[in-house]
């Protein structure tokens, strides 16, 4: 769609020259990127670097979905949003920032909260999905949706001074339900608004998510399939561990799964996890 075939256009050669020089990446990698479409779910702490780096590197289509507005207490970590956008849509703010750094890619703004009722329709249009959300029910929902539509899912999370990253449902890797068939007790579902997060921690994880998306889109290198990265900012330790593969008995991605798109659309993820999808509570600080 964006690059027909053969040689890249001259302005692209100049813009992406530092990519084209890479023996492991080169013209073929850049062409694959320009033909790929990536959906970033969440324009927050993780989504900020994901969207900026995917826009800068030249993916063909970048979709961003988020139903929230920018708040001042987002800005300590959500570097895609300017003060001038406080009170306005996060998706608009993020898309404008991406356009300003690369006007040559196609940006799609999905100004909704992703829900079972709209997720299939939105996710279907993309090759790769990046989970940059901040709550448990949405994480289950996105994973189920990606299994139903057979899309690779680049999943990152950050809280406090720690971060986690893996690629679900790709090259034999598990889905979220393979790893976590049952949701944790409600008391274990801490959010950034409850427990805080050091701003640059989602920055590190988000950059690594953008990298994994690029690797999956271009088929270059070894993505984090069947492996999980565990990041501890305080001690500056990073562990990359081997995790189980896709489970044959998984109720969603397993061989005998009977989970359908219709069931997905009716599934109550908030009830399943006993946890709300939106995270708009203001922390009560007594200092």
């Amino acid at each position: 769609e964006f690059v027909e075939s053969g040689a890249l256009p001259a302005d692209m050669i100049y813009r992406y020259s530092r990519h084209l020089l890479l023996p492991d990446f080169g013209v073929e990698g850049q062409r694959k990127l320009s033909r790929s479409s990536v959906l970033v779910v969440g324009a927050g702490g993780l989504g900020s670097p994901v969207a900026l780096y995917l826009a800068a590197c030249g993916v063909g289509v970048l979709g961003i979905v988020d139903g929230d507005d920018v708040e001042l207490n987002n800005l300590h970590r959500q570097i895609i949003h300017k003060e001038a956008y406080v009170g306005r849509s996060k998706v608009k703010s993020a898309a404008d920032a991406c356009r300003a750094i690369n006007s040559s890619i196609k940006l799609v703004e999905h100004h909704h909260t992703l829900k079972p009722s709209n997720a299939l329709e939105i996710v279907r249009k993309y090759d790769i999905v990046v989970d940059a959300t901040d709550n448990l029910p949405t994480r289950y929902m996105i994973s189920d949706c990606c299994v139903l539509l057979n899309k690779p899912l680049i999943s990152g999370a950050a809280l406090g001074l720690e971060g986690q990253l893996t690629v679900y449902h790709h090259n034999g890797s598990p889905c979220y339900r393979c790893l976590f068939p049952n949701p944790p007790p409600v008391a274990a579902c801490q959010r950034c608004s409850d427990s805080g997060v050091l701003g640059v921690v989602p920055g590190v994880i988000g950059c690594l998510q953008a990298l994994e998306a690029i690797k999956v889109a271009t088929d270059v290198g070894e993505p984090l399939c069947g492996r999980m990265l565990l990041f501890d900012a305080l001690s500056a330790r990073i562990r990359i561990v081997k995790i189980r593969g896709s489970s044959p008995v998984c109720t969603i991605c397993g061989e005998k799964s009977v989970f359908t798109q219709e069931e997905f659309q009716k599934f109550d993820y908030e009830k399943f996890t006993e946890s709300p999808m939106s995270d708009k509570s203001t922390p009560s600080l007594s200092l």
Partner: protein
Amino acid sequence: MHLTLEFGGGLELLLEKSTKVHKVDCQPTMDGSEGGKATMKGLLSWVKSNLIKERPEMFIKGDSVRPGVLVLINDCDWELCGGLDAELEDKDVVVFISTLHGG
């Protein structure tokens, strides 16, 4: 046997002084004897009795860990090593980490 136990993703809050890394000397056999096989099942029980200071239900459910906790033996998912029946060896590193949802 000497084991290194690490807790993360918030599980460290259940331990004294929220310490993440614990180098311990224990006999995580089912009857605590030196001769028996050291298993993850024995270790979970030892951790619950000896390290967890509060809200044990945030760590254990039934005879396993609660949903949402990943267990790693020497950087490998315990599901690939036998789960509760996985046998432990001297100097093994066992990580318990709660999955994060924030972003």
